[in-house]
């Protein structure tokens, strides 16, 4: 041992070759990474950009959504509806704006949603909550759909790619793929996801109906379900079920790229950014970094009655 310590610190031939090998492999890796990076930039061709029409009749060329860069392997034997549901609509970035000053807890949105997606009365894709932030601030009603986050925690944790983010911003679930581990339910800070604990009630019209990812019907036992931004309606250029059902003008829905959102009740179209700017729009729990695609306008100047019973329920969550 002592002999070894006295040896001058000279590298043996073997050690030198080892180091050389490590440096060599390292530089090859680094080189190829840089090369791939440059190539990637070069490959950005016109087809990576798409054109959209803005609300003020102006043609705008935008870069395609990040979602479209994710290569979805095609050899997975998806049905036509599954593949279409995963691809989403090109050039769109759907957003929803919910005006809390208008919501009177009419719950037409919830009914329309449950009918469309064949849900039981205890299951909610859309849930109107009674909210209160502090004892002094007033209570208000808050419709809560899936927030369709741009950084969705649910998609990150899914082990089988059953839930995914589309290029048009919508987060969907493929219940032919879902294994029912419910990690997404645990990960979602907005409690937006539900589970088919038992065999769902199937209606007659569901017979011979192929599974549509964009409607998530027929629902399947042992799989997760959630708000879909009515992807099937949106594909037809219509407003979501909840948005059209609202009698009080609470919901706006539209395309961020076009900077236009349409109110489901009045059918009036507004500029999305301006609507947020004029009304102090915000998102739920922005501190979590989830980047929701659902925006809220504060419950300012609301003139509807808030029931005492609802007040009690709202106060329960004050802590």
């Amino acid at each position: 041992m002592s002999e070894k310590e006295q040896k001058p610190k000279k590298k043996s031939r073997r050690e030198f070759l080892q180091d050389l090998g490590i440096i060599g492999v390292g530089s090859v890796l680094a080189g190829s990474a840089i090369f791939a990076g440059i190539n990637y930039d070069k490959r950005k061709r016109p087809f990576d950009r798409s054109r959209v029409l803005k609300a003020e009749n102006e043609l705008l060329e935008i870069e395609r959504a990040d979602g479209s860069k994710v290569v979805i392997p095609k050899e997975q034997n998806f049905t036509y509806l599954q593949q279409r549901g995963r691809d989403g609509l090109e050039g769109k970035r759907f957003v929803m704006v919910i005006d809390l000053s208008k919501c009177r807890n009419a719950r037409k949105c919830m009914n329309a949603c449950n009918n469309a997606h064949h849900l039981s009365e205890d299951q909610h894709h859309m849930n109107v909550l009674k909210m209160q932030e502090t004892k002094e601030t007033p209570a208000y009603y808050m419709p809560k759909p899936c927030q369709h986050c741009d950084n969705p925690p649910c998609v990150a944790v899914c082990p089988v790619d059953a839930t995914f983010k589309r290029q048009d911003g919508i987060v969907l679930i493929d219940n032919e793929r879902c294994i029912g581990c419910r990690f997404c339910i645990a990960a979602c800070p907005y409690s937006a996801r539900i589970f088919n604990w038992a065999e769902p009630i199937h209606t007659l019209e569901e017979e011979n109906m192929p599974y549509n990812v964009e409607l998530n019907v027929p629902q399947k036992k042992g799989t997760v379900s959630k708000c879909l931004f009515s992807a099937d309606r949106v594909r037809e250029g219509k407003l979501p079920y909840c948005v059209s059902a609202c009698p009080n003008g609470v919901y706006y829905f539209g395309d961020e790229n076009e900077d236009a959102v349409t109110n489901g009740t009045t059918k009036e179209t507004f500029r999305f950014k301006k609507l947020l700017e004029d009304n102090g729009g915000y998102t739920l729990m922005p501190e979590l970094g989830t980047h929701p695609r659902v925006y809220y306008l504060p419950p300012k100047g609301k003139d509807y009655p808030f029931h005492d019973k609802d007040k009690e329920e709202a106060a329960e969550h004050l802590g």
Partner: protein
Amino acid sequence: MSDQLKADKITSDLLRSIRLNKSFLVWMGFLGTALLICGYAYFLQLRDGLVVTGLRDYVSWGMYISNFVFFVATSLIGMLISAVLGLTGIKWAAPLARIAEIIALAFAAIAGLVIIMDMGRPDRLLNVIIHGRIQSPIVWDITVVTVYIIMSTLFLYIPLIPDLKICYDKLDKLPPFARNIYKLLSLNWTGSGEQANLIKQTTRVIAIFIIPVAFAIHTVTSWLFANTSRVGWDSTIFGPYFVTGAFVAGTAAVIIAMYFFRKNYKLQDYITDFHFDKMGQLLVLVSLVYLYFNLNEYMVPGYKMKKFDAMHLNSLFVGAHALLFWSVQILGLVLPIILLIFKPMRKPLPMLFIGTAVLIGAWFKRYIIVVPTMEHPYLPIQNVPLNFKVYSPTLTEISITILPFILVLIIITVLAKVIPIIPVHETIEQHEENN
């Protein structure tokens, strides 16, 4: 007494348990019956769906996931006793290594089944392999748990090879097919210096590499929770918190196993009061470390009482889960530490009771980690029936939760029946060295 005579006595003492006897058959019959009952509960769940449980949309993880964490936790003990204590040259742990390894293997292997019991669509299990996404902690967990099961099997098997040859040589009353299995598995062991060296080196390599793998399985398991932004789970110390908690559960499990093997197999000369004393000290050590992590985990957010943390912590400290929380912390952690400081408490019988309390506490600790957080999401739980807000496990669910315990007991019982529970070869070697 000459060495040869002593070696013969050791061999016959340690191999005595390898035979079919009445108590074994009665015990296995009991386990088999329990397995059938719990298996029927699982059949109900497969037929009707997870609706047979108390789980609902908000508390969507409950007993099954707690159980999974507990099983992974307990399996870590193989690494602590055989690898850590073995590598650091702590001699007293050597006779306990095989017990620890059997426990580790049984719990790790069944942990994989526990997670399947929680799945809504177990028929789609293969999707995890076919369509696995590397971003998901579940995929990490499956990978490391599989690696750990393989390594634990090797860690049990390789030091066992000389003993298998001894079994073949000495157990001449067994039917020929059974002896041939021993012969086949002993891989032509002759006891030559070269072979002995090979086993020594291989065991050492596995012992070294099983340490990071064992840390990985429980750290990744903790990340199933810590990688979400839920109150009570959103913690940076979850990895070490879970790993240290695992040592507590595993040590308690080994103590309980030691007691029963010693009593049933009449191994008083091999598992002595000295071993219980040492295991008691080990339990105090790991419990103190775990207590320290508990202090950090609850005191730090408890001091600040941020809005959502406060809802969660209030339910633990004074609310709906308070009784369970304080029972677990005091009866399952603080009291055992205090008791075990006194030497008379480190005798076999008191250790059995303390070990059992610690192990039960360890299970409910996982429940306390999983369930209250799920009951306290950021947004209020409204417009749903009461059983969505408050989790209460059903009888079917409890039976399915017991099912994996029965499987673990069956594995441990069978393994301890067909292989010597104390390493024979090593014990003889040790004895020769001492003389």
